[in-house]
């Protein structure tokens, strides 16, 4: 007896589907890595344009010459209380600098990326913002990226 009565039947209710896995193997030791940060926490420079809290697929470049106290958060999707006290709890840039100084990693990358997760145009994120950030990291010779999100 077959349990399938109608072939290709799909639920009418939207269910998120986990995409097939992506994987780039690690080829360097931690001490030989130039490490960059990318965060969905809405981090950017204080002088830079704020994110649209209703949903925003754009991103902000954060360069290494920006001090951590010159950075801020605009994000409507989580409690900003902690990150307003200390940007490092979502964007641990000072910690990365310290690890580079101690020789745990080779270097802190010259550029990092801030964007606002938790909404916005997912197609734009996937097809434009994501590849643009990846391209920047490629051009700057980044070996590994730590993200904070979710």
């Amino acid at each position, binding site marked *: 007896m077959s349990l399938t009565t109608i072939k290709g039947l799909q639920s009418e209710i939207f269910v998120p589907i986990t995409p097939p896995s992506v994987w780039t193997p690690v080829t360097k030791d931690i001490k030989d890595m130039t490490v960059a940060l990318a965060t969905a926490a809405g981090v950017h420079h204080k002088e830079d344009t704020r994110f649209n809290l209703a949903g925003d697929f754009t991103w902000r470049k954060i360069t290494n010459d920006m001090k951590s106290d010159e950075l801020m958060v605009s994000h409507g999707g989580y409690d900003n209380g902690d990150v307003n006290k200390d940007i490092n709890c979502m964007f641990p840039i000072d910690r990365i600098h310290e690890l580079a100084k101690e020789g745990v990693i080779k270097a802190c990358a010259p550029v990092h990326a801030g964007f606002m997760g938790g909404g916005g145009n997912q197609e734009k994120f996937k097809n434009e913002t994501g590849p643009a950030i990846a391209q920047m990291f490629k051009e700057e010779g*980044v070996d*590994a990226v730590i993200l904070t999100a979710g």
Partner: protein
Amino acid sequence: MQRAIEEAGIPTIIIAALPPVVRQSGTPRAVAPLVPMGANAGEPNNKEMQTAIVKATLEQLVEIQTPGKIVPLPFEYVAKV
């Protein structure tokens, strides 16, 4: 975002406060300390915890061999709200 960077040929790891969310969106590698959303890399102004989380994250970047693996990290911060 993590997938886009990984697809470009740079290995990545995400520090997540909500592991089921990153699992669903197809993360290649993740760590999950016991933290609330908004303090993924540890308690504010707790340099020791933040350093430990970032170091453990880098170790797992090398350690994890299976795409989609999420490793819990033994650090806990409960926000007082």
